[in-house]
């Protein structure tokens, strides 16, 4: 029997169905199932192509699974819960399995994601000894600069000249804040005394979170000696534990302590060394009342962080799902009449060969859009920008095949006129510029969904504020699908409209 590996990806609420579809279509695997916020897949060794997983566009992050079990029978009391959890960790064979896969695909993982392999590689060469000692070392690095890594560091310094230093210093409080966003805790395993020591010093040696994961190396760029050093260090994997907890279990648990306990057991099971500052691996544990899921992320950057989106407004996976729903065909003309930073068009451009026009009335948004479009330069780039009003579109009738838009939610992006009137005019303009058989994909707030539908169906209630515009002819659009999604805490809908 061939060995198989379990992976899971995280996805925004409501988008799991698109993730599942993308995995089935692109990875051609059948053992896929979805659950609230996660999609799991089972891949046999022969079919294992990690780069395909990393190329998924609709997901947030990808993990190789360590354990996943139904928690419902174990949340009767704290003791039962903890016994089960710790037992899972201490008995699983998946840690070494995961490490094998990660090592096997290391180059694949990092080549794509990080332009600073050299710098990161050298960073990993910092010796890992006992906690107190390594802290001493990091103090030394702070005070003495980069004499730790011999020639590698020199190489790095040369390159780092034109970039800000990779090691950033943050006061302890700030660092804690950074590492514990809403219910997530990465716990420090160092003793209280050594923490004290560092905080006396005032600074900690931390990499900025966005710069973190690149443990991989491009061998072509390294000499043999440094390669040997890196190999050596690779055999001693370092990790940290991040626990995310929701539901009733949260009340019993001290997340810091729990992370520490889990870390201790992982260390015992695997021989890996805890390193909170620049670990090679992160063990993420997500506990909810229904399930406990643990895994190691394949990349330190979320997959949803695109190289080609310098400054994204909307989350890239949502933009990708909208493009997917629009069913873009080669050679079609796509318009985003309120494109903002052009996230949707740029995302579409990387996958579908078509012509894209984005317009926005805000010069600052367009400036960000130019940046995003320019970052596409090397790829097929066919995005044009126009400064114009989203309600009085300067486009001739029936000239575009698809309109895609992240329409104002009337919250951060306020509509200039009453929201009913705004959407009424907006839908009529979309109807005007769309060619026959055209499609429209709108992202809007859940509350505004019914407004859009009644405008499209021409059955606005009488108390609606838009009597003045009523004289307009009915639109030629019909609702094709409504897809509920959650954007952070906001409930939203992607509405697909078809023109006759």
């Amino acid at each position, binding site marked *: 029997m061939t060995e198989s590996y379990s992976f899971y990806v995280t996805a925004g609420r409501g988008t799991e169905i698109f993730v599942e579809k993308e995995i089935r279509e692109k990875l051609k695997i059948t053992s896929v199932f979805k659950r609230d916020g996660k999609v799991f897949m089972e891949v046999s060794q022969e079919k294992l192509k990690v780069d395909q997983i990393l190329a998924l566009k609709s997901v947030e992050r990808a993990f190789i699974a360590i354990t996943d079990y139904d928690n419902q029978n174990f949340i009767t009391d704290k003791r039962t819960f903890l016994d089960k959890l710790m037992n899972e960790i201490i008995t699983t064979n998946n840690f070494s399995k995961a490490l094998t896969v990660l090592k096997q695909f290391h180059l694949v993982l990092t080549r794509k994601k990080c332009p600073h392999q050299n710098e990161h590689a050298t960073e990993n060469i910092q010796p890992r000894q006992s906690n107190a000692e390594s802290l001493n070392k990091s103090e030394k690095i702070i005070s003495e600069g980069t004499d730790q890594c011999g020639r590698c560091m020199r190489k790095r310094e040369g390159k780092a000249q034109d970039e800000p230093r990779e090691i950033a210093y943050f006061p302890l409080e700030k660092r804690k804040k950074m590492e514990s966003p809403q219910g997530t805790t990465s716990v420090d395993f160092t003793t209280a005394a050594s923490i004290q020591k560092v905080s006396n010093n005032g600074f900690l040696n931390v990499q900025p979170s966005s710069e973190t994961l690149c443990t991989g190396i491009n061998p072509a760029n390294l000499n043999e000696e440094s390669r040997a050093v890196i190999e050596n260090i690779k055999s001693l994997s370092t990790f940290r534990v991040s626990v995310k907890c929701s539901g009733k279990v949260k009340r019993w648990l001290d997340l810091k302590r729990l992370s520490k306990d889990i870390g201790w057991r992982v260390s015992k099971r695997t021989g890996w060394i805890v390193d909170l500052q620049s670990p090679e691996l992160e063990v993420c544990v997500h506990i909810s009342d229904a399930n406990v899921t643990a895994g190691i992320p394949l990349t330190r950057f979320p997959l949803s962080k695109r190289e080609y989106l310098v400054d994204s407004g909307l989350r890239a996976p949502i933009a990708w799902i909208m493009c997917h729903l629009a069913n873009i065909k*080669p*050679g*079609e*003309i796509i*318009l985003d009449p309120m494109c903002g930073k052009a996230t949707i068009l740029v995302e579409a451009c990387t996958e579908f*060969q078509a*012509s894209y*026009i984005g*317009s926005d*009335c805000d010069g600052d948004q*367009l400036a960000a859009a*130019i940046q995003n479009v320019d970052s596409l330069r090397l790829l*097929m*780039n*066919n995005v*044009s*920008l*126009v*400064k*114009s*009003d989203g309600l*009085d*579109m*300067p*486009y*001739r009738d029936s*000239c*575009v*095949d698809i309109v895609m838009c992240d329409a104002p939610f009337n919250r951060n992006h306020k509509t200039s006129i009453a929201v009913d009137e705004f959407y009424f005019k907006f839908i009529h303009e979309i109807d005007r510029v769309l*060619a026959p058989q055209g499609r429209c994909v709108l992202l809007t707030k859940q509350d505004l969904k019914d407004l859009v539908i009644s405008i499209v169906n021409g059955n606005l209630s009488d108390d609606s504020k838009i009597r003045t515009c009523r004289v307009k002819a009915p639109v030629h659009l019909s609702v094709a699908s409504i897809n509920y999604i959650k954007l952070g805490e906001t409930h939203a809908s992607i509405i697909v409209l078809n023109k006759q």
Partner: protein
Amino acid sequence: MKLLTHNMLTSNIIKGVTKGFPLKIVPVQVEIKDVDYNPAFVVRTLSKVDWPALHQAAVETGFGDGLPETLGENFQQDEELLKKIHNALLQVEVIQGELVCPESGRKFPITNGIPNMLLQEHEVGQ
């Protein structure tokens, strides 16, 4: 601004302007930006394009040589022509200049490749 984009633009958003198409291009700076040549893509895109307007825009920007005033039936077989159309439609970019409304003479500036089609409040029609 690509000439494909220009082909979609109209100034009939101005009060009193009925057609507003095609807008006259007064180029100051024009660049050629490489886009992969794909004949099928050009043909499909052309089905959405108003040819006389594209022809006029190509002439105004200085890339009209060899483009016929009316597009014949068999243009799809003419590789030379398709390449020229590809160039005019997708590669020519007006970086600086002006668009002029054919009816009212209202000028719309093009800066950094982006035409500014915003109107003053008193210009907006109903």
